[in-house]
């Protein structure tokens, strides 16, 4: 199938224009992770985190989790922006254009990834202000790789849901029964080691678990799984979800 570079670019650019114009929305979407960082970070400041070596403290444990959370929410929202376009009619304008569906998917992924990464990086910056210390520039580079994989995974997932839903009604259900469980199961806030084994088993089916653990491994140098396991799992999830998302979008009808 043909790839239309211009179409990908114009879809990406539309996302950028909308992102820059929706300042209140950015502030809104960043408020929650910043509150989490501030209140949990300060509240549990002196708590030792079981299974975590080094002197990073709870903020060291928390910050990668909150970065992961920011990416989880922003990426799945971006994936599901198909739904918004459907609601406001713009999806038809996109679907009727003489552009391959693959290009449409790639354009959406490009735009969604950029905005999600920007939000993740902003939260990373905020966590620095709250006393988070990471291991150095090289670790940040590896951190960005994990962030990218998290973004891909959940944009793909958002696309799957959005392609199968006809209106906004399913949106709340997905938020409450898919995205929030992914967040809590990932060990973003609490160490997995404290969960009963049933929940832990579920955690290991959650892509974000590997994303957050990988971020901890590269940023603060301590993790519950080997970093290569995290990387392999995350890369696998990203590939599968992107493929599923693209497939769902391609086979969905335009109206």
């Amino acid at each position, binding site marked *: 199938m043909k790839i239309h570079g211009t179409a990908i670019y114009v879809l990406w650019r539309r996302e950028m224009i909308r992102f820059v114009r929706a300042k209140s929305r950015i502030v809104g979407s960043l408020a929650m992770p910043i509150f989490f960082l501030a209140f949990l970070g300060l509240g549990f400041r002196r708590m030792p985190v079981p299974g975590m070596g080094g002197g990073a403290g709870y903020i060291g444990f928390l910050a990668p989790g909150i970065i992961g959370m920011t990416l989880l929410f922003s990426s799945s929202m971006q994936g599901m922006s198909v739904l918004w376009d459907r609601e406001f009619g713009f999806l038809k304008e996109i679907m009727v254009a*003489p552009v391959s569906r693959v290009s449409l998917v790639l354009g959406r992924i490009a735009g969604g990834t950029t905005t999600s990464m920007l939000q993740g990086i902003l939260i990373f910056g905020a966590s620095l202000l709250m006393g988070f210390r990471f291991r150095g520039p090289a670790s940040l580079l590896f951190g960005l790789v994990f962030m990218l994989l998290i973004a891909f995974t959940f944009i793909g997932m958002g696309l799957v849901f959005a392609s199968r839903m*006809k209106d906004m009604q399913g949106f709340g259900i997905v938020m409450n029964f898919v995205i929030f469980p992914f967040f809590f199961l990932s060990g973003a806030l609490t160490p997995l080691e404290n969960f009963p084994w049933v929940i832990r088993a579920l955690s290991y089916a959650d892509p974000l678990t590997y994303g957050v653990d990988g971020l901890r491994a590269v940023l603060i140098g301590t993790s519950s799984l080997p970093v290569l396991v995290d990387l392999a799992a995350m890369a696998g999830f990203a590939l599968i979800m992107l493929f599923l998302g693209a497939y769902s979008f391609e086979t969905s*009808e*335009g109206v």
Partner: protein
Amino acid sequence: MDAIRVEGLVKTFDGFTAVDGVSFAVEEGELFGLLGPNGAGKTTTINMLSTLLRPTAGAATVAGYDVARDRDAVRQSIGIVFQEPALDGRLTGRENLEFHTMMYGLGKAERRRRIDEVLTLVELTDKASTLVDKYSGGMKRRLEIARGLTHRPKVLFLDEPTLGLDTQTRRHIWEYVRKLNKDAGVTIILTTHYMEEADFLCDRVAIMDHGRFAALDTPARLKDTLGGDVVSLEIEGHTAPFLEALAREPWIKRTRVHEDVLSLTMDRGERRIAELVVMAQEHGVTVTCVNLHKPSLEDVFLHFTGRTIREHEADQSERLRAAMRRHGWGRR
């Protein structure tokens, strides 16, 4: 070559048949109308022709390309203005047009030229840098029509182009549509449930009801099928001799008497009124009131479907919409 050829087109949704075996052809340069109440299957037909929906059965070509097999080629050849706004309100008018022209692969210089051209055409040049969210309904409609034209489509689909607009804006849009069709030679297929719109604009009209065509012809000939104009005379006096005299006139096609009102069907009724009044006087009948009724498409619709379009609006469309909502496939 025909711009559009449709043979036995069918679309069913979960056992509900929205379009039930429609066949027609639209010539190049023609302005073709689909007239019918909401829920008649007009939009579904348009959606299949524009590749947004896949036909359940039947075949169609647009600009020579098959809508099921050559989807990209069809999309490249058409422009479409949807029934409900399909603009990005967070972008300006110009940005919406830029998005569109880039999606259609126009070069940079051509993009600028075409966008300026169409903005002038729909008189939105001043508002080009305003966010579309701030546009009025009529401005949005004009922008969408402009957008449908930027890439010079061979065939333009207009789905209820003037729905919900005030009379003045509607007139304006009719003029644009006419100009496009006559000057630029774009083949246009439009759906409407406004009789006067179909009558004013279309070369040929298909009357659609329950997913099928009830009739298809030029507005004039559709009206002719009703037999012509109706002249109604309110009369007083002894009418029998007058009625006998009328029965001998070959140009009167049908005579009906209802109480003191005499209804006569004929061609070109306006030219016969004086003659009729004189005849009445000659036979000792006084005419107290004359009424000439030219058949409208409304009458044609009534003739072919047994109901007026407003009666359809009232019950049938509501029922269909409820069924559509139940099946969860949209609000159209």
